[in-house]
């Protein structure tokens, strides 16, 4: 049976920043905030599916910002998430050319808190393009790059999890894959610009 632990803002930030049990932290965020944030989207021209998608983007953005030390606890996580959720939904409405973007209903002052989102992708379209491009990479390349750059596995562990003979072969393959992915991103100048901005954000 899964133990559902109540986390304070400080504990949650510590867990997200240090990468301890990301799944558990994400579940906690869903249980705590999904209903409220979804309610907001659905009362501002969004569908249930929009609410789910935007919340997912919000959680990803939140983790990216926390891991880049862009959340310093000046507001509560709740306020921060509301603000991020609002930004992502606003961008989405603009993209759809909807007049509602100018009329978002914010009844609580806390929802108006400004959030520095320059270190996260708050544009769903950009995120979707990124996902599409990375998905277009070969399975082996994706696997090696994810193991090294996302799961933080050592070269030795990667050799054990692939069919390659030794670390040097994997190292060479990793370089080729990363270079290939870089070139694929360059074919989408707007996305490349967004990602470069994030690097320096």
């Amino acid at each position, binding site marked *: 049976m899964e133990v559902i632990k109540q986390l304070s803002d400080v504990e949650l930030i510590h867990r997200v920043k240090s990468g301890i049990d990301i799944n558990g932290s994400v579940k906690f965020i869903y*249980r705590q905030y999904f209903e409220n944030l979804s309610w907001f989207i659905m009362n501002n021209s969004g569908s249930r599916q929009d609410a789910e998608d935007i919340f997912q983007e919000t959680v990803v953005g939140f983790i990216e910002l926390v891991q880049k030390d862009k959340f310093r606890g000046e507001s509560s996580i709740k306020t921060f998430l509301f603000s991020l959720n609002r930004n992502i939904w606003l961008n989405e409405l603009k993209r759809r050319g909807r007049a509602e973007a100018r009329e978002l209903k914010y009844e609580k002052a806390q929802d108006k808190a400004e959030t520095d989102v320059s270190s996260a992708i708050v544009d769903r379209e950009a995120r979707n393009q*990124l996902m599409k491009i990375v998905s277009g990479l070969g399975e082996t390349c994706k696997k090696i*790059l994810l193991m090294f750059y996302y799961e933080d596995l050592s070269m030795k562990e990667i050799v054990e999890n692939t069919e390659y003979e030794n670390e040097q072969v994997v190292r060479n393959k990793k370089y080729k894959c990363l270079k290939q992915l870089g070139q694929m991103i360059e074919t989408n100048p707007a996305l490349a610009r967004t*990602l470069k901005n994030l690097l320096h954000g």
Partner: protein
Amino acid sequence: MDNSTYNNGQILKWLDGEMTGEEKTSFEKALSADQQLQAEVESLQVARKAIRSYGLKRQVAGVHEEMMKELQTPVKLISSRRRIIRYTISIAASILLVFVGITAYNFFSLSPERLYGQQFNSYELIITRGEEGLTTIEKFYKDKNYRAVIEATNQVSKNSVEENFLSGMSYLEVGNPGGAIAPFREVINRDKATGGTSYLDQAEYDLSLAYLKNKDYDKAIGLMQTIHDNPGHSYHEKFTKSFIRKVKMLSWR
């Protein structure tokens, strides 16, 4: 410095933070001066950023699926129409609650004594032949000396139908329903055996009440149902379906 000085392995080593000391200083000096090297490094950094974002998004998406199953309750839109529906449901729920409350009160406040009290009526002795013509037992009963009636009828081995009936009624009057059962049954058996009807209906009615007060619900319900089902019975209308249902409710407790 031309980036050809640095091979792929060295660029990756710097990117992955594995370069140290003099080697690192030298690489970074070259990087600051070489735009081509800068472009290549930046492209790799962008790719690394992309793969990390992809990994995170994929991980969150996995949890998302799981959480959507857990948080199945749909998020409610509060429109005025829904608000009206909500209020209507609230009112209906309140009415239902009141109804359930009343039903529960009725159920738990039901008692054999209460139902018995709703039905029982004292029997008035009808005198047709003058005071002087009354038997001792009849006199006792007329004077409401019910214990004397019981005592007198118990001293005689075989009482008349009327005396048995008065004995049964006296037991009920003194609050001893168990004692009333035998004399009432005697009345019924003898009336049925002889075809007499003078006390039959009255005895059946009061016997069922004796069973009720004595908490012998199955026998009470059976007899009450028989009386209810017989339109010719003098007490046919006394035992309504509602009343019999209440006695049944008592039997469930």
